[in-house]
């Protein structure tokens, strides 16, 4: 079966140790994590993990089910690329001298939809938001100008479904049932 890049989105209680519990579910199956982002959500006490991994769909569906089993997990979902909006942020550091010598650079930065976020005595920092491919394209463009440092964030993603996280959590809170199949929401 074909291996592809998928995005797993997990809503959890904001509890220590969960990152470890989640990632060992992938690592014991020898599935490598391409990117991982953890942040709080608009709901207090609830965190969102966005995990990008390459594997077959059935393998990741099983991973998602195992993640749902974790007591502090509120919901876990598997997405293909066309089911989500997603972005990454990349930062590129160049020498100020190189930048000043090459007028072309400013045009290139603009063409890639990137922006300069800091100009220091010796260096400038460029920020680009986009897909991994887009940030990589800018990396390749800037490479001949000697990139001093480069960093890319994990993917952040939200689903294209009409789901509202707040409503989802509220439903969990107000329900008195322990048979509620809310994780399928």
């Amino acid at each position: 079966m074909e291996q592809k890049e998928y995005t797993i989105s997990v809503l959890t209680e904001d509890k220590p140790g969960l990152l470890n519990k989640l990632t060992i579910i992938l690592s014991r199956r020898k599935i490598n994590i391409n990117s991982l982002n953890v942040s709080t959500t608009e709901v207090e006490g609830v965190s969102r993990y966005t995990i990008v991994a390459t594997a077959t769909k059935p393998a990741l569906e099983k991973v998602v089910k195992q993640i749902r089993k974790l007591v502090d997990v509120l919901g876990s979902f598997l997405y293909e690329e066309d089911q989500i909006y997603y972005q990454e942020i990349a930062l590129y550091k160049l020498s100020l001298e190189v930048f000043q010598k090459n007028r072309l650079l400013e045009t290139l930065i603009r063409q890639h939809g990137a922006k300069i976020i800091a100009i220091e005595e010796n260096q400038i920092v460029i920020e680009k938001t986009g897909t991994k491919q887009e940030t990589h394209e800018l990396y390749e463009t800037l490479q001949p100008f000697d990139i001093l440092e480069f960093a890319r964030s994990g993917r952040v993603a939200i689903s294209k479904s009409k789901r509202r996280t707040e409503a989802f959590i509220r439903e969990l809170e107000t329900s008195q049932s322990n048979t509620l199949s809310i994780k399928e929401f």
Partner: protein
Amino acid sequence: MEALVESLEKKLKTERLTGSEAILKCLIEEEVETIFGYPGGAIMPVYDALYDYEDQLKHILTRHEQGAIHAAQGFARSSGKVGVCFATSGPGATNLITGITDAQIDSTPLVCITGQVASHLLGSDAFQETDIIGISMPVTKWNFQITRPEEIPMALAKAFYIAQSGRPGPVLIDITKDAQQQSFDFTYEACERIRSYQPYPELKEQPLKTATELINQAKKPYLIFGQGVTLSGAEKELKEFVEKTGIPAASTLLGLSAFSTNHPLYVGYAGMHGNYGPNVKTNECDVFIAIGMRFDDRVTGDINTYAKQAKVIHIELDPAEIDKNIQTDVAINGDAKQALKALLPLVKSNDHEEWVKEFHECDKIEMDKAIQKSIQPTSELMTMAEVIHKLSIKTQGKSVVITDVGQHQMMAARYYQFDQPKSHITSGGLGTMGFCLPAAIGAKIGKPNREVIAIIGDGGFQMTIQELGVIMQYQVGVKILILNNSFLGMVRQWQQLFFDRRYSFTEMDNPDFIKIAEGYRIAAQRIEKREELNYAFDQWLNTKESSLLEIVVEKEENVFPMVPSGSCVSKIRLE
């Protein structure tokens, strides 16, 4: 007003306690009566408090933490209650890991409480400090570290709720020494719900309907049940279902004793060393009903050739087990008891006489090629099979049988005729040698009125032999049967069949088990001759106290039938 009354009531219930006292109070609130454990520096405040609670909480001092946790497992599996154990930090806690893993894979409800170094020392590599939370993460259903006494009631309430609800499992609570020592205002409230945890899926109508249609139309339906039946207490419903539909039923290793082996529709035990019929008929049935079992590889063999011709109906509580190993046609995600109750009025009364007869024909083949040779051997020394067969007749299948891991385990599963539920306790998923002796101690404490028989090989016995001390100290009436072939028998069998008889480090020079037992003041005898068996069994069984019987058995006996690892179940070898 109501809020005021509630707050006043809460105040009245509040007591000023140390963390350690609070732990014990929580256990009492959860109706725990027995704790298995081993003290040490980081859990000493709890043991100190226990000194004052001896009339309410019975503590069994094992000889090793591994003994404590296996005993808690045996207790939980025989009694159906949560098993509880205590251990100190560091080595005490890590010694629990094998048992925790065993409990996780065999769905045993446990609450393990470990002491931890004081919170200001966490992460400093202090004496006997270890990150037991990190270590136990992949093998617990839930774990939690307590650093303040105020967290104790909430964490323990959650621990008991999580351990025993839904698919049961082990929970570990790690408590720093300072949290055990500090005082706080204690109140206890049992946990009934956690918003991020829904242990009981709601039965959906559509799969029940589809399953009913398949079952009612099936010409060759076949059913395999697992431990899920025992865990949900669905033995009665399973019997009614099988009798109404006339479907032949087989058991997995952990399902054994959920259904009487003497029932005419019981067709045997399925799996690597199971019976011939249940294995080959898997690939001939048209509808395959799996209840409370997880399609372990020891049951399925090669999954690419397993029941491919059949429509598969899987009744399973844990949604992660559905479609994990075998793709199902109908998934009924729910408790086995509820699902069977819902199906019972929907399914038609039926009998599948001709189909059931096919299983009995398989039984004849197995009897001729494997069973007969095993239970009526021509060899001078006794075989494990004949000993267990005889034991089953002697006890009329009414004992609780605890086994260790290896050939004797498979022989017990094959030749003991279980007549009552919760009568078979073994380490199924993890295959932990050393499990039997302490688990039998726990099982006897959990069900003191039942005859508990520990069937152990000479290898496994020596892994936790020190727990004889517990039998001695607490007068636990366990009957121990050692089947001694001076070999690690199952490994030797594999070496014979798959490694060209290269018996690499599987032969054992054993100590005098009788002297060891007598050293622990346990009555013991050893027999080698067939003609001694009957009398020895009578003597051994007719005592209330614990007693040990060592039977020297044939050295190179093999367990057959056998599905070689990863092979197709239809290609089961009879000899």
